[in-house]
């Protein structure tokens, strides 16, 4: 691992996106998004449906390729299928990515093996403990409630201790307990200087957690600010103003 830069120590930005475009034929999903995040930043992206937030996350995580522009995540160019990039990122989306017929432990051991971690079993148990479900680690995922599944899914996403975490609408479908666990967990990751990018519809929750805020509209960032420069109380006003201006 000597050839890969340590993303926590390097002075380079954790994420550097320049003019990201996504189009197929004449239909454009993203029309040039540029931003940069330092290691340890927490960016919240708001925006109406169809703004291309999920597309942006998918491009930055390498799930889909951009049609223009460049992005560097953890020092690696996205879009050329570099597996070292995937080692540095974790993704939590609506889907849990867990096998219903396997137990929580078996699921996590499987993922630990896919990440080629040493002592996959120990690492899996540790990750389950972090989300507080060690009592049920031998139960089938299919018997878990949605909230508990999502907690195991968090453990799955961070099993390899990623330096950058992507969350796409992570709170949808979570019960109050589940979202509290998630919030606390994100907070602890934030204090550990992990870089976090989150899309959400929940304005107050997103404002509370992020330290940078973006509003995405029609495939562009209509707003990208440090939270400190914004009036937190009046953010809802600002959000709708930005969206109406964009139309």
């Amino acid at each position, binding site marked *: 691992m000597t050839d890969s830069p340590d993303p926590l120590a390097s002075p380079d930005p954790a994420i550097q996106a320049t003019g990201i475009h996504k189009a197929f034929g004449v239909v454009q999903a993203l029309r040039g998004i540029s931003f940069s995040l330092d290691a340890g930043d927490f960016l919240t992206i708001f925006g109406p449906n169809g703004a291309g937030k999920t597309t942006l996350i*998918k491009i930055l*995580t*390498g*799930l*889909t*390729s951009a049609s223009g522009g460049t992005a560097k995540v953890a020092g690696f160019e996205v879009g050329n*299928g570099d*597996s*070292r990039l*995937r*080692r540095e*990122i*974790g*993704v939590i*989306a*609506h*889907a*849990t*990515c*867990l*096998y*219903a*017929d*396997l137990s929580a432990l*078996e699921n996590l051991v*499987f*993922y630990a*093996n*896919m*990440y*080629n971690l040493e002592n996959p079993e120990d690492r899996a148990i540790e990750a389950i403990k972090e989300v507080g479900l060690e009592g049920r680690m031998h139960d089938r995922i299919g018997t878990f409630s949605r909230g508990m*599944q999502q907690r195991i899914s968090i453990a*799955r996403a961070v099993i390899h201790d990623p330096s950058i975490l992507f969350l796409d609408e992570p709170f949808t479908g979570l019960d109050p307990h589940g979202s509290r666990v998630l919030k606390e967990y994100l907070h602890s990751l934030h204090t550990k200087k992990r870089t976090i990018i989150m899309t959400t519809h929940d304005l107050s929750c997103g404002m509370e957690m992020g330290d940078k805020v973006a509003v995405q509209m029609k495939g562009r960032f209509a707003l990208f600010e440090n939270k400190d420069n914004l009036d937190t109380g009046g953010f809802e006003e600002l959000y709708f103003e930005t969206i109406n201006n964009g139309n």
Partner: protein
Amino acid sequence: MHPYLNQIKAIVRKDLVTELKTRELFSSMFIFAVLVIIIFIFSVDLSIVKANEVGPGVLWVAFLFAGTMGLNRSFMLEKENGCLEGLILTPADRTAIYFGKLISNLIFLLVMEIFILPLFMIFFNVDLIAHLGPLLVVIFMGTLGFCAIGTLLSSLSSNLKTREIMLPILLYPLIVPVVIAVVKMTGQVLDGKSLGAMMNWIGLTLAFDIIYIGVSILTIDHILEE
């Protein structure tokens, strides 16, 4: 162990553990294959037709129909809860995912086929034991070709709304060469011919296996991209 092999092993192991717990795939494939054979027996009069002539065809139709069910189910498992996305996000190479699924599909199908053989022997009253060696070689080569293209196409069709219907429609025309080859070879093996006497068919089947494993390696990246 090498990371690449370790990842393939993890996928195969995961599929086998799931199957050992649920036994869904094996039992449905097996029963389905038995039903196909029985329906064929009703539709051909075995007192007129020689078993060696229709037998190989019936056997392979049963294998392929049941195999298609297995392929459909195998990728459905990856689509539930978005598992495939989680798999793509891991550092694993896409071809490792393909080979993992190929090997577990191959194992499921071969096990099903081995359990079907004794039934076939009894129903059609043919002696397989005398020709078991060459027969297993033929079955392995044919099933490998079927799984090679089948795994690729089921990874593709699993994203379609009409996946159960589309997989056979996409798959069957493509596997015609391998079907003709294995049915001919099985018939000749049952007639007591040696494998050396059917080198053209063996060459064709191996060419099919290699071409479609190659095509899959080259294109799987484009299918597993969102």
